[in-house]
């Protein structure tokens, strides 16, 4: 009997404990979800940190994304966050932050100092997207397209891989950016988000060496870059020669490359690109023509464009595709290999062959 009473009291005691949840226990509705973080150069202090907070709503409708933007200037990012936390009535939760946007002004110098906080931060998920904002991160955060259901949804979705056919939008994850920042022979890049009316567009890519912004790839070349980095399928290549104009929808795209260092000759990067697709648009009937010829035209076109892109990156001595890593993984010369590679890369010739196969012209006759 006494034992049973003991058990009963034990149970009651445990039940009482439930009443003492304390302040560490924060339910989902007692938190403010930060969906996007933006960092700009401050006017008075070093940084201006802007946070896009999602306001939870019971009903989710297009065009009714409720959000709030708070910003604070401070000399360090963590200090700014501390100050921001005291401005709002709920706990700031960075766990759902999906995108980290760096203002264009900050990118010109010392990208590593700016990103140091997010590299160390334990409460931000490593799968956060990163981007460069043009002109400022705060303006990008403020943009809210009319179709938006959830705050920053369109921003997140235009980076996510769920969006089909986004051959223009190159995306970059935090973990990958981190990796590229510290890996010799593979340089970091960030997509550039520019403001356009109430919305924004993502069609440029900023390339860095490990320290600063080196070049920005413009829309004509972004898709080529995206193909080399992400190997997507389903993108369009337009070809024009004399009177013939047509567009190809590429359905399979693979490439492999080899770095050859013959003696007494400049090093060669031999790249074989294999493309398969079907014709999506043309200004004349193509079915009865010699497909081989049509393919030749496109192959030449693609070759030249890749060559241009690769050579301009070579000119800036940046290597986002990771040729250097590839080379150093296969040729080991101890500590000297990095210098060796830099020398090779500056002298390198690009030899690109494209093997294009048209699978169908889309219509039978």
């Amino acid at each position, binding site marked *: 009997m006494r034992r049973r009473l003991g058990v009963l009291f034990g149970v009651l005691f*445990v039940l009482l404990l*439930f009443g003492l*949840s304390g302040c560490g*226990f*924060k*339910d*989902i*509705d007692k*938190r403010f*979800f930060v*969906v996007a973080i933006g960092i700009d150069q401050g006017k008075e202090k070093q940084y201006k940190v802007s946070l896009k907070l*999602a306001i*939870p*709503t*019971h*009903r*989710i409708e297009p065009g009714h994304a409720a959000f709030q933007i708070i910003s604070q200037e401070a000399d360090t990012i963590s200090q700014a966050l501390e100050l921001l936390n005291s401005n709002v009535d709920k706990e700031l*939760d960075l*766990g*759902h932050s*999906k995108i980290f946007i760096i203002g264009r002004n900050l990118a010109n110098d010392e990208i590593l100092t700016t990103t140091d906080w997010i590299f160390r931060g334990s409460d931000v*998920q490593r799968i956060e997207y990163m981007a460069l904002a043009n002109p400022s991160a705060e303006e990008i955060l403020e943009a809210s397209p009319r179709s938006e*259901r*959830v*705050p920053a*949804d369109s921003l*997140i979705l235009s980076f996510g891989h769920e969006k089909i056919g986004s051959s223009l939008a190159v995306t970059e994850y935090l973990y990958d950016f981190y990796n590229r920042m510290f890996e010799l022979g593979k340089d970091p890049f960030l997509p550039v988000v520019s403001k356009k009316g109430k919305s924004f567009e993502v069609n440029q890519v900023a390339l860095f060496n490990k320290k600063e912004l080196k070049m920005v790839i413009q829309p004509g070349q972004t898709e080529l870059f995206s193909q080399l980095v992400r190997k997507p399928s389903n993108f369009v290549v337009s070809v024009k020669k004399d009177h013939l104009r047509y567009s190809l929808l590429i359905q399979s795209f693979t490439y492999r490359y080899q770095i050859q260092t013959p003696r007494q000759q400049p090093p060669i990067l031999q790249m074989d690109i294999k493309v398969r697709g079907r014709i999506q648009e043309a200004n004349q009937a193509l079915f009865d023509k010699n497909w081989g010829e049509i393919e030749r035209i496109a192959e030449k076109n693609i070759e030249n464009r890749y060559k241009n892109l690769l050579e301009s990156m070579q000119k800036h001595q940046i290597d986002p595709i990771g040729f250097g890593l590839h080379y150093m993984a296969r040729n080991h010369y101890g500590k000297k290999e990095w210098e060796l590679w830099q020398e090779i890369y500056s002298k390198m010739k690009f030899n690109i062959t494209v093997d294009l196969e048209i699978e169908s012209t889309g219509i039978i006759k």
Partner: protein
Amino acid sequence: MIQLEEIDRQLRELSETQDFEIQHLTNGDLSIGLYFYSSLINSKLIQERISEPFSSCHSYSEMKNILDAELFCEQVLDEKEMIPKLLEGYSLITFNDTFFSFYAPKVINDKVDYAKNEASVQGPPFALTEDSYANLNLIRRRYASSNLMVKEKEVGKKPKAKLYVMYDKHVVKETVLQELLQKIDDIQDEFIQASGQLENLLSQKKFNFVPLMLVTERPDRIVFSLSQGKIVILVNGSPFALIAPAVFYDFMSAMDDRYQTYWIGIGLVILRYISLFLTICLPAIYIAVISHNPEIFQVQFALSIAGSRAPVPYSSFVEVLFMLFLIEVLIEASIRLPKYIGSTATTVGGLILGQAAQEAGLVSSVMIIITSTVAIANFVVPINEMSFAIRLVKYPLIVFATLFGILGLISGAFCFLVYLVNLRSYGEPFFRLQFGEHASTNSKKRISG
């Protein structure tokens, strides 16, 4: 030899109850005495087999021949076995200072009815009855093998309960059988009325969380288990049989799985395991994610949950415990309620209460979905025993999740898993999922010959 005075005294004692009948028949030449419980005896049988032949008898030897020739009639040689026999449905016949017992029972609880607890779509629809003889009949008719052994046992204090232990002597594991029989002999105290009660008495540990023997009412499951080398115990008066040793998969499988095609059977089993996971973990996951790790959701969903939880002032675990308490009460009430009121309880509880609780701002709308998922998924487990046990498992996990979030949930689930893995059902490892289940007893031997 038999002591007449002792018998006289016992019979006098028995006649104190109203339904004990004493009849003296005479046909002019002879007279016999008949003693029986009128409530246990089929009087028509006595009339046909005893009193009619008796009326045309003229000598004692003639009467003795008639009784000797009768099928269920034998001479009583020990006065001690008299009363148990009377209580089993024998009638006692005395003449010329010799005693005969004649088996003429009246059995009315042997009607075969549809299976109510373990319904099946394609399997045989009928369940066991309350009468052990009828059950033995049902089983032996299906399991037409001379290897099927039946052992009768009596256990408990007075009144004793009768058990029938059945097994296939070629495939049963001898050690398991001996252990089980020993355990049955060790039972002393209680009066056994139900199979589950017997299971509790037979179980090795005092505080068991999950059942280690399977309780079933389906003859086809019993026969299948017998063919696997398992031991079946029938309790007289209970329409449920006890099967040992049992593995976890037995509780998760319906007999229908075997009657369906292979992939459908597998699919159904997977469906049940998913439901099992949901019913155990969902409330704990809700608490852990809502209060500790909201970053697990998609952001869109997190915001919608936060929105629906906004009017709820209490912490998530209060909400969960409140709602689960309601649903448990509802389940318990609908089991005990008479059938006519049962549907009212479900309507009131399920529809009105859930809706109203949400509107009153006591619980969030997601919690309503979770509660109903937990309740429905719980009943997917085909064996009621396990279904009941599973109902309890989620509460410790809720405590873990409340205190330590997802990590707590994982460690709690791990503890439960460790507990299950440690269990043995009569020497056999208990926690077997589908794979390797057929090797649980030595049924491999059976296949190879």
